[in-house]
């Protein structure tokens, strides 16, 4: 899991200017939206725009994700055929409640890959949980298919379903975030946090990003380009952290040569979990540097 997915920038699928410019803001992934940000009478025109944008615009090595409409909406299948034909990297399912939801979409993706001569399995998937049932089923969803590279929480629908609303400290999301995170870690897939809608509240945004990083999320869905650098800044290990991690790894290599299980560095015990964390810090720093 060395690929960075710190930021996944939502781009409304019906806005050609934003589809054109989205890559310049430096988000790790771009998520073209065909779902909630698109009015019902604009769904098909947005689909054409997203299809042609993926096909014709050179986004370099930027990961392109498309959030499709659910199959229940009656238009999700057409979304899948369009974006698979265009060559999308990842299809994100909204409002996922069961592993079967993922498998149903996967079956259509596979048909589309065969139809358009794509390598079967090359289109990856993400699933967003936005209801109590989805959160309860997080682990079975996360392990439903090898295509699934990550799971995410969609908070706006979730809090509505929970008869509450979002607060500054995020207490209403603590259980759901933890559940999704544990499911993701157990299934060895990415965990992506929900959007922060109050784009003018930078202090609140920083606080939330610090919280989700501390919890262990790999990154966050974002809705405004201004949020990209803040997330990257918080997520990128500092030089001090990298230096310390490097020393831990070096000490561990040294100990391995000497056949020692536990070692000491600066008077503190270093064992396997600490070495694992240090390796992750260095991996993240290297990936951030390369990006």
């Amino acid at each position, binding site marked *: 899991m060395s690929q960075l997915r710190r930021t996944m920038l939502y781009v409304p699928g019906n806005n050609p*200017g934003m589809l*054109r410019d989205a890559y310049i803001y430096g988000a790790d992934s771009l998520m073209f939206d065909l779902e909630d940000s698109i009015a019902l009478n604009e769904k098909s025109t947005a689909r054409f*725009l997203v299809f*042609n*944008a993926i096909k014709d615009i050179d986004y370099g090595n930027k990961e392109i994700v498309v959030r499709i409409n659910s199959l229940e909406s009656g238009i999700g299948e057409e979304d899948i055929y369009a974006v698979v034909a265009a060559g999308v990297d990842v299809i994100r399912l909204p409002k996922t409640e069961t592993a079967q939801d993922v498998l149903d979409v996967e079956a259509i993706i596979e048909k589309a890959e065969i139809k358009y001569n794509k390598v079967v399995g090359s289109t990856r998937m993400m699933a967003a949980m936005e209801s109590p049932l989805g959160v309860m089923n997080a682990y079975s969803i996360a392990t439903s298919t090898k295509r699934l590279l990550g799971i995410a929480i969609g908070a706006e629908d979730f809090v509505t379903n929970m008869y509450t609303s979002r607060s500054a400290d995020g207490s209403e999301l603590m259980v759901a975030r933890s559940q999704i995170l544990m499911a993701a870690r157990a299934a060895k897939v990415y965990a992506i946090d929900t959007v922060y809608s109050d784009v003018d509240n930078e202090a609140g945004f920083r606080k939330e990003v610090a919280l989700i990083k501390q919890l262990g999320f790999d990154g966050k869905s974002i809705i405004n380009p201004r949020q990209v650098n803040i997330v990257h800044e918080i997520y990128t290990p500092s030089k001090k952290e990298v230096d310390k991690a490097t020393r831990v790894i070096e000490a561990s290599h040294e100990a391995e040569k000497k056949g020692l299980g536990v070692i000491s560095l600066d008077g503190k015990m270093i064992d396997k979990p600490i070495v694992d964390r240090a390796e992750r810090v260095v991996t993240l720093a290297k990936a951030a540097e390369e990006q």
Partner: protein
Amino acid sequence: MKIIQNGSAGTLESSDILIQVNPNKSKGINIHIDSVVKKQFGDEIRQLIIKTLQTLEVDCCEVSVIDKGALDFAIVSRLQSALFKGAGVDMNICWEEL
């Protein structure tokens, strides 16, 4: 593809284009272009429209566009969208042919 009704797609926002297609009472294709960059790119926009019509095998319709500096992908998308609406087709599109 046969255009049987009005089909419209796009907006008048910057970087976008508004395209209307209608059945042509006489034969052939009529294209009317109004663009903020008509002097520089009018011919290219026309060629792109003609190519898109040919791809979809549309040989009889009126096309009216108001362009606000749209890139090629937006012009093609809006035209495809307007044409499919004009043909009364919304689903089961042959994406590999576009």
